[in-house]
């Protein structure tokens, strides 16, 4: 039992460096303008991607989309604080994080388009496949980090989950394993107040989700999830500590899911419009823009340029998703094992036979 509880407790209030009006709070230095501009650009792209994906669901090109509208700052920061050799473990809601780290958005959306379960090579960008079974990926993140640690590699792993996922047993086991083995993982909880329809108050009565670190000997930190500057600072600090050998870190961002859980969800059944409205003025994108404009680091021209860049990305996404891929039944049998078993050979032959007879008809 090695840790002093006082060193583990998060701050009473979430860290905020820029207030909703765009003014620095003075709590600590805001990251430099280049860093902030890079974050701003990614936020613009992220918002555009959320909007585009939402539209593609309406057009029937995506089965469903869990939007991160309102949470973009969390995801942008989670990706931007990582180095090339670090790993990112995203959930179904973290399309933006994966894309910010460099995965082609068309490839990320393959899951929701329905062509395959995962559309990108996780090793190319060191982004794990998006996880659906809640909290399970946190353990994989610990394993990836521990393997790297055993080999003496300086890898840090950023493991994402939602507020609801903190209730799962795997959350507990992941934090504990990481702590006991001193694995450099940053557990980053995007607390967006809801797990589908279930509000945070029915999920936990802890002082905050960051307080969950205490029980593992893991330092917790709370941050304003709509303030990209604070997120870059807090997540960046957590990554630095993890890399320096201080073990896992837990960060809770306070944010809000502006849209329904997915397009299939009806949020009016469980929350009031005015609750949503109150979060509009905390929008992460306008806050970053106001700050940068206030400093004169961002002008209309650049805003237009970022928007144009985001539009190009959106066009690329539309093109990619409008392309129909001919489903290949061989795919069903080719990846279950390194080689097809005799049984899978038989079953694949059955399908091939059926198809050839269909063609013959």
């Amino acid at each position, binding site marked *: 039992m090695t840790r002093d509880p006082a060193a583990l407790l998060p701050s009473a209030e979430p860290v905020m460096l820029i207030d909703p009006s765009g003014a620095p709070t003075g709590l600590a230095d805001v990251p430099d303008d280049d860093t902030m501009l890079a974050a701003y650009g990614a936020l613009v792209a992220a918002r555009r991607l959320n909007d585009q994906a939402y539209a593609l669901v309406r057009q029937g090109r995506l*089965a*469903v989309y869990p939007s991160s509208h309102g949470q973009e700052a969390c995801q942008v920061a989670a990706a931007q604080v990582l180095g090339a050799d670090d790993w990112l473990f995203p959930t179904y809601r973290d399309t933006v994080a994966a894309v910010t780290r460099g995965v082609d958005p068309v490839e990320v959306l393959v*899951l*929701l*388009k*329905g*062509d*395959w*379960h995962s559309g990108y090579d996780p090793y190319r960008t060191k982004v794990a496949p998006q996880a*659906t*079974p*809640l909290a399970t990926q946190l353990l994989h993140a610990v394993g990836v980090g521990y393997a790297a640690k055993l080999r003496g590699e300086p890898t840090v792993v950023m493991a994402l989950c939602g507020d*609801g*996922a903190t*209730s*799962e*047993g*795997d959350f507990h086991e992941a934090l504990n394993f990481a702590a006991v083995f001193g694995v450099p993982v940053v557990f980053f909880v995007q607390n967006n107040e809801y*797990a*589908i*329809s*279930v509000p945070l108050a*029915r*999920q*936990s009565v802890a002082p905050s989700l960051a307080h969950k670190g205490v029980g593992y000997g893991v330092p917790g930190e709370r941050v304003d999830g709509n303030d990209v500057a604070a997120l870059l600072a807090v997540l960046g600090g957590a990554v630095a500590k993890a890399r320096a050998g201080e073990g896992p870190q837990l960060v809770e961002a306070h944010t809000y899911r502006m849209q329904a859980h997915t397009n*299939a*969800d*009806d949020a009016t*059944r*469980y929350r009031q419009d005015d609750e949503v409205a109150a979060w509009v003025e905390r929008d992460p994108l306008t806050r970053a823009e106001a700050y940068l404009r206030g400093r004169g680091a961002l002008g209309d021209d650049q805003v237009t340029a970022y928007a144009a860049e985001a539009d190009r990305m959106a066009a690329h996404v539309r093109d990619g998703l409008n392309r129909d*891929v001919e*489903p290949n*039944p061989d*795919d*069903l*049998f080719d990846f*279950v094992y390194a080689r097809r*078993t005799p*049984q*899978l050979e038989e*079953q694949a032959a059955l*399908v091939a036979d*059926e198809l050839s007879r*269909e063609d013959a008809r």
Partner: protein
Amino acid sequence: MTHEKLTMAQALNRALRDAMAEDPSVLMFGEDVGPLGGVFRITDGLTAEFGEERCFDTPLAESGIVGLAVGMAMNGMRPVVEMQFDAFAYPAFEQVVSHVAKLRNRTRGAVTVPMVIRVPYAGGIGGVEHHCDSSESYYAHTPGLHVLAPANAADAYGLLREAIASPDPVVFLEPKKLYWSKEEVDLAAPVPGIGKAAVVREGTDATLIAYGPSVPTALEAAEVAAQDGRSLQVVDVRSIVPFDDATVCEAVRSTGRAVVVAEAVGFASVSSEIVARVTERCFHSLAAPIRRVTGFDIPFPPPKLEHFQLPGVDRILDAVDDLQWEDS
């Protein structure tokens, strides 16, 4: 007047409402089953009607949900819990296998756990991975559980009422793709009961044995076969555990040929069991080996490929064609 046109989802909702109204110890809980009414709206309106203490949301933890239900059932309640999707019931597996299934036996009947685990299950709705598993074989292989799978709204109502009234724990598998099919339902009709299969179409040439989501497909196949002059009988298993050997074997003996149809992966499954036990019992009545039309031995495919995995009319009829008609 108890005849009504209901979808299976509405029939299930009605079963919960009627059970809760009749017995104050019946509780409903799980993820999003409260104000939202469940992601499939099976619990719609229950919180409003019965209050937060009778139908409520839990923290997001399936082992927790099932474990809580075990304790409540030990202490006088009759909990019904919802696992949001088939694959999301797996975190509760230890609780189900080591406690729900075993507590009565462990205590020589002193402790009973009358509870129902409702699982929206199987494919056919274009769902992404982890949302389409057919997990009945895991439960059916576990002694101590009853495992039911209705194939129509009337059975959904009747079997869920029976499941809630049962002194034994029940895994209640709701075929997602049938949630929205509407039929005439007589809510007051007597229920054949847990452990009873039903011959849902008479036929003389071969028997199709199916349950849950595969029953409508089997019926459709029988319809097509009839147009081709072949008379297929269809048996709806309804109750996977306990299994109705009498009805199924009588049916198979009457035709001498059979095909088992199930969406689940075939290997070491409920359909393997049906083939094995019917063959053991009816060997000399069989003109041909019993064939299986099941999901392949692969993870459930993505939406664009799922039609290959689901047993369809063509695959069923191919299997029927393979039943060695020339030899007989």
